[in-house]
């Protein structure tokens, strides 16, 4: 298991966003987390990567308890995180955005940083925009850039919070292809609303509802699960 949580709970002024979440993610898997709005998905991954302090419970990453570590230390140990609301460095060129991500791991080795940056840019087909300001990119390209920043970190656990939100259909397909090629390289934890994406890329699915784990299973099992259908239909979601 590369990632394990036990009893992970977050309460805001007494209201629980997550309650006793036990979660196991084997290395190399592509896992999707789904659930209705307000199910506590973003809070849950926020506690995993350290953006949100847990009220109680533990997070174990790669065999070590990281519950008390600040976010930057967890990232240092091999997590990467992309934000639900696109978050890039708008006033810096695209190349520098990616280089900043690469530099954290590669340090002062300028050549290695440059190679890694070029590699990521060409892999995402945005080499021709390398010198543009990130803030001038289209929304779709900013999302892709943010995924690129994650790639440049060479993470062992790559957490993506609703990466396809707001993307056009063709861009979603490119995204699916990208995730499938990444599948062999790293462990992926994906929050996703778009069920087409989930069914296409996820090997295994965890369903959260009202802050708790409702079901775990393969895409086929989840599709057939009555409780999951109830949760979705009950909250008016397709």
């Amino acid at each position, binding site marked *: 298991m590369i990632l394990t949580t036990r009893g992970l709970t977050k309460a805001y002024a007494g209201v629980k966003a997550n309650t006793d979440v036990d979660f196991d993610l084997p290395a190399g898997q592509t896992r999707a987390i789904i659930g209705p709005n307000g199910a506590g998905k973003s809070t849950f991954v926020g506690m995993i*990567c350290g*953006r949100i302090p847990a009220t109680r419970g533990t997070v174990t990453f790669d065999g070590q308890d990281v519950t008390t570590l*600040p*976010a*930057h*230390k967890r*990232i*240092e140990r091999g997590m990467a*995180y992309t*934000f639900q609301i696109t*978050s*890039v*460095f*708008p*006033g*810096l060129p695209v190349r*520098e955005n990616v*280089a*900043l*991500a690469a*530099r*954290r*791991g590669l*340090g*002062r080795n300028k050549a290695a940083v440059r190679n890694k940056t070029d590699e990521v840019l060409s892999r995402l087909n945005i080499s021709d925009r390398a010198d543009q300001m990130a803030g001038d990119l289209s929304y779709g390209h900013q999302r892709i850039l943010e995924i690129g*920043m994650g790639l440049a*970190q060479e993470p062992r656990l790559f957490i993506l919070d609703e990466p396809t939100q707001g993307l056009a259909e063709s861009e979603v397909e490119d995204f699916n292809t990208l995730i499938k090629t990444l599948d062999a390289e790293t462990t992926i934890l994906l929050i996703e609303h778009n069920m087409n994406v989930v069914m296409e890329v996820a090997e295994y699915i965890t369903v959260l509802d009202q802050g708790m784990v409702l079901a775990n299973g393969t895409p086929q099992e989840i599709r057939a699960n009555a409780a999951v259908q109830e949760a979705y239909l009950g909250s008016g979601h397709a």
Partner: protein
Amino acid sequence: MSDTSKSHGLHLGLICVLALAYFVLPAYHSGNLASVMVIAIYAMGYNLLFGYTGLLSLGHALFFSAGLYGLGLMMHLADWTPLPAFAAGLIAALVVSAVIGFLILRTTGVAFMIVTLMFAQAGYLTILYFGKYTRGDEGFALQQASRQIAGYDLTDPGVRYYCALVLFSVTLLGLAYIIRAPFGRTLVAIRENEERARMLGYNVTAIKLKAVIVSGVVSGASGATYALLFGYAGATFATVQYSIFPLLWVLVGGAGTTVGPFVGALFMFYLIDYASGKTEAYLLVVGVTLVLVTLFLPHGIVGTIRTRFLRWLP
């Protein structure tokens, strides 16, 4: 020519022009230029924090006066020679900025600005409180006889000018190097999007603390240089006004540009000099300039040149 060599050219060119200017300019103006170079060091230190890291401090006079009094008191009360006293000034600025930095970085935004203002005000009052040693607002002069380094008389206009130039050049080239290095890039990243930088694995608080310390020490170096070259230390330099001046110079010249602080300091020095010849209320130009720059020139002089014409400007 690459952008890097262009910026090296710009910095070395500016230093050469300043080196030659002493022979061309009348004594009055070369004296002014020596002052401008010293206060430009202060502005450059401020710019590292404000222009590159995005932290607006209203309390840098504290760091400037830490250097000023660190050197001044050691020479005045303990009869130290200039070089060890200069080191004392730097150490004073280092200690003050490390302690203050540790505290102020717990706040952000408007609270950060007010806290820096409050600490600087407390520092100013402390200088007044120990008036027995610091002589308060009146201040004290450093004896001409003590202001000698290796036989060079720092009160001589020529020696003073080139001493100012050397320290100015070291600061300019040093800071230009820092902002091109990974550390400087990270500062800009924090300015642009702090949360993103943190989630790339950067220890944002520690990096900001380093920025406060470097900025504080450079500001302190300016204060120590000022006391040494112009032979005077007084509590006026610790007032709010001297925290606002570097902000003004950097805003006018261009925040986040390497030569902006010098350009802003030069422009405002002559503007205030001109206005003080005309009216008792010469600080009016400070107010008008601040308002006009905020309204119409948010990138400052050099920043506007960069946006409009020369994208490569460092």
